[in-house]
């Protein structure tokens, strides 16, 4: 669906063209700095929204089902970067728990790509995200968030430990820092651009 209008009111038009929206996913394990990165590089502090599992588990018009269900709520932080009047990037931090894969599927649909944030103190926490985007064929990069007090690893060491394909960029970053987070996004967009060029 590119754009929808009701046929009944053909006279109504938007005041101006709707901006082009682009989705970027910020993934990684719990506490890897996803919300921090979303906040440091976005126009405003991170916003929070929720999805309910009942969306998928209850049929249309099934009021009784909604009332009887213990609704599980999944929170998701996101931010916006207005590139210009006609182009807006949305950064969505994925819910950490893997049982919420259905939300990852939804977020990944049509996304430009993903940043997988890695914490070297708990490197294995980002493996599921890497597996997920590899399987889906979503362009992604790995950004190693350099926490204070954590031992600094060489990129070679991290690459070896992550065992990702040679073509996947791995960068060091400080998710609290706006310029650093911006550079991570630039690396991702350049990587996705290459993937796009290679595919066409």
């Amino acid at each position: 669906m590119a754009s929808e209008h009701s046929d009944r009111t053909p006279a109504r038009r938007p005041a101006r063209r709707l901006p082009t929206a682009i989705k970027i996913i910020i993934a990684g394990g719990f506490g890897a700095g996803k919300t921090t990165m979303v906040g440091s590089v976005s126009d405003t502090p991170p916003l929070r929204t929720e999805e309910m599992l009942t969306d998928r588990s209850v049929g249309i018009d099934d009021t009784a089902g909604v009332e009887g269900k213990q609704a599980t709520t999944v929170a998701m932080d996101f931010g916006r970067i207005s590139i210009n009047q006609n182009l807006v990037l949305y950064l969505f931090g994925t819910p950490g728990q893997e049982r919420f894969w259905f939300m990852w599927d939804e977020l990944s649909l049509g996304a430009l790509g993903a940043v997988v944030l890695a914490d070297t103190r708990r490197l294995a926490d980002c493996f599921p995200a890497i597996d997920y985007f590899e399987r889906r064929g979503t362009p992604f990069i790995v950004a190693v968030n350099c926490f204070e007090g954590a031992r600094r690893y060489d990129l070679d060491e991290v690459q070896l430990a992550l065992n990702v394909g040679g073509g996947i960029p791995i960068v060091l970053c400080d998710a609290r820092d706006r310029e650093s987070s911006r550079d991570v996004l630039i690396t991702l967009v350049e990587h996705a651009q290459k993937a796009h060029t290679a595919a066409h």
Partner: protein
Amino acid sequence: MIPDGDPPRAPEAESGPLVRPYVVTGGRTAPTRGHIDAAAQVVALGDPPAGEERRGLTPEHWEILRLCRTPLSVAEIAAAFGRPAHPADPRPFGPTPGAEHPGPPLGVIRVLLGDLLDEGHVTVEQPTDPKVADLNLYREILVGLRAL
């Protein structure tokens, strides 16, 4: 502009936090249209509905129309739902702003947007998948990011 004479009632003012958010959709959990992405852009169309067109619009529909007088994503509508537009302009909506009040679930906003689409009150545009766009889009994004 949404007319002053018809202020939407705060959905949570009397009942406390919405523990059963789908009450405002009459129990419906899926919109009448296909899936609407969290990043989809929404804008209210033309003048606010009047007369016959207002039938069937709830305060929650009005709140969405208020929020998307300028284009806004579905996720932003959910996050801003029921919040004062400006701290100096407190409106009779909902709870105190804060992360502990993320607004209604996205699914509720989607159902209400489906209604507004059906009645021609809004237009919705899904996010662009860069994989099917031309390379100029990537260049434009990169130019914008480098200027941050």
